[in-house]
C-alpha cells in the first residue's frame, strides 16, 4: 500500500482546475487552424480567428478562456494499492475551492437545485470514481459549461433502432441544439449500459483528444460518418452558418440488456476543457 498525502490531492486538483480553464489543448488549437482552411463563411472564419486569439490571451495572462468556468467534473481513477489519509472526496472539493478562488474562476454552483444559493466556491465537484489495479491515482478535471450541457439528452431507444437509430438521434440532437452550445462543438455519444451509465459514457467520451478514434473500426467509422454529416448541416461557428459545426464525434459503448437500447448525447462547446495528472 502506498500512502498519498491528502494535500497532494488538494494541490493537484486546484492546479488542474486552473490549468483546464486557462490553457486550451493543442489538439483544439490545431483543429481551429485546420477549420480556418475549410470554413467558407467569412463570419465563420472571423469567429475561428477570435477563438485562436482568445486561447493565446488566456494562456499568456492566465485568465479563464470562458467566463463560464463550469461545473468541476472530476474523473478519479483510484489504484487499489494507493491510500489517502482522510476523505479523498473532501480533498477534491478543497482543491476545487482553492482552484476556483485563487484562480479567479467563476463560481456557478447553487447549493440546492430549487432552493439554493451560490456556494461561492464552486463546490461540490461531481466525482466519478473508478477503482483500478496499481498504486497510482489518476485525476482528470473536466470543467463543464452550462450552455452545452443543456443541449444534452438521454434516450431509452428500442433495440430495433440499431446504429441507424443512434445516428438519427445524434443528428437530430445537434440540429435542435443549433447555436446554443457554442459551435464548433464536440459530440460525446454513449451507447448501451443502463439509463444512468449511458450518460456517464457520453461524458467520458468528451475526455478524448481530437483525432482519437474509437479503437473498434466499426465505431470509428460511425464517428467519422457522423462528423461529416453534422458538418453538412450548415450550422457553422456560433450557429451563424458555415462548414465547421463540430470538431469531433466520440462514441463510447457498453454491453446492454436484451430489452434496452440506451443512447446519450453529451455536447461540449469548443472550450473543451480537461486536464489530467497522475499521482
Amino acid at each position, binding site marked *: 500500500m502506498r500512502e498519498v498525502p491528502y494535500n497532494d490531492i488538494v494541490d493537484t486538483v486546484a492546479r488542474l482546475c486552473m490549468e483546464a480553464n486557462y490553457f486550451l489543448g493543442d489538439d483544439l488549437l490545431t483543429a481551429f487552424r485546420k477549420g480556418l482552411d475549410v470554413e467558407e463563411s467569412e463570419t465563420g472564419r472571423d469567429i475561428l480567428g477570435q477563438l485562436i*486569439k482568445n486561447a493565446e490571451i488566456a494562456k499568456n495572462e492566465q485568465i479563464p478562456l*470562458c467566463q463560464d468556468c463550469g461545473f468541476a467534473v472530476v474523473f478519479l481513477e483510484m489504484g487499489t494499492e494507493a491510500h489517502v489519509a482522510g476523505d479523498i472526496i473532501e480533498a477534491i472539493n478543497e482543491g476545487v475551492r482553492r482552484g476556483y478562488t485563487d484562480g479567479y474562476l467563476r463560481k456557478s454552483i447553487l447549493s440546492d437545485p430549487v432552493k439554493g444559493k451560490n456556494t461561492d466556491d464552486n463546490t461540490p465537484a461531481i466525482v466519478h470514481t473508478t477503482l483500478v489495479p496499481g498504486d497510482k491515482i489518476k485525476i482528470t478535471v473536466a470543467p463543464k459549461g452550462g450552455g452545452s450541457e443543456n443541449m444534452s439528452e438521454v434516450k431509452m431507444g428500442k433495440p430495433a433502432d440499431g446504429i441507424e437509430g443512434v445516428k438519427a438521434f445524434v443528428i437530430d440532437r445537434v440540429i435542435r441544439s443549433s447555436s446554443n452550445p457554442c459551435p464548433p462543438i464536440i459530440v460525446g455519444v454513449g451507447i448501451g449500459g443502463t439509463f444512468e451509465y449511458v450518460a456517464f459514457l457520453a461524458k467520458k467520451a468528451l475526455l478524448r483528444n481530437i483525432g482519437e478514434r474509437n479503437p473498434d473500426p466499426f465505431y470509428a467509422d460511425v464517428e467519422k460518418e457522423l462528423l461529416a454529416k453534422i458538418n*453538412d448541416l450548415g450550422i457553422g461557428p456560433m450557429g451563424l452558418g458555415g462548414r465547421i459545426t463540430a470538431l469531433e464525434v466520440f462514441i463510447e459503448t457498453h454491453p446492454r440488456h436484451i430489452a434496452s437500447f440506451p443512447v446519450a448525447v453529451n455536447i461540449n462547446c469548443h472550450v473543451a476543457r480537461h486536464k489530467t495528472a497522475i499521482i
Partner: protein
Amino acid sequence: MAQAIAINTPLTDEQVMKLKSGDSVLITGRIYTARDAAHKKLHDLIKQGEKLPLDLQGQIIYYAGPAPTKPGYVIGPAGPTTSGRCDPYTPDLLARGLKGMIGKGVRSKDVLDAMQKYKAVYFAATGGAAALISKNIKAVKIVAYEELGPEAIRELEVVDFPVIVANDAHGNDLYAEGMKKYRR
C-alpha cells in the same frame, strides 16, 4: 475580418433600421449586463408598475456574467451567455425602449416579433471568446442587484466591442439563413 460598421450607444431607431443581419458591428459606449436572474427582477418591477434601476431607452443589454476580476484588470473574462433564457422577459423590456441585445443563440418568435414591432436589433458575440472580449471593456460599474454576484447589472464602457447582427429589425435571421446557405 469583414468591413465593420462602427456604432455608438445609445441607439436611435434610425441607426437600428440601418443594420442588417450578417453585418459586422463594433460598438462603442455604454452597455449593460443582465442575465435571466436580473431580467426576472426587472420584469417583476414592470409588473408591479415600479421604476426600473436603469433607463432602457436606446440602450443595449449584454447577456453576460463575468468571471472574477484579477488584480490589475478592469473586469474578468466576459463572454456572452445563452440569450434564450431571457426570452420570456425580453418583449416587456423592448416595449420600454430597449434597442439592442448582445448574446449567443437563437431567440423565440415572441422576441423576434417584438423586435420588429419596437425596432430593435439582436447582436451575436462569440461565445467562449471571453478573454478576448474583455479587452474591449474599459470600465465597469455595478448598477443594481450586487447580491446576484456575476449576475448583477453592470454598466460597461466598451470600445469597438465586436458583434455580428444575428436578427435585424426587419425580420431577417442569420441563424436560419446562414444554416440554409451552407447546408449540403
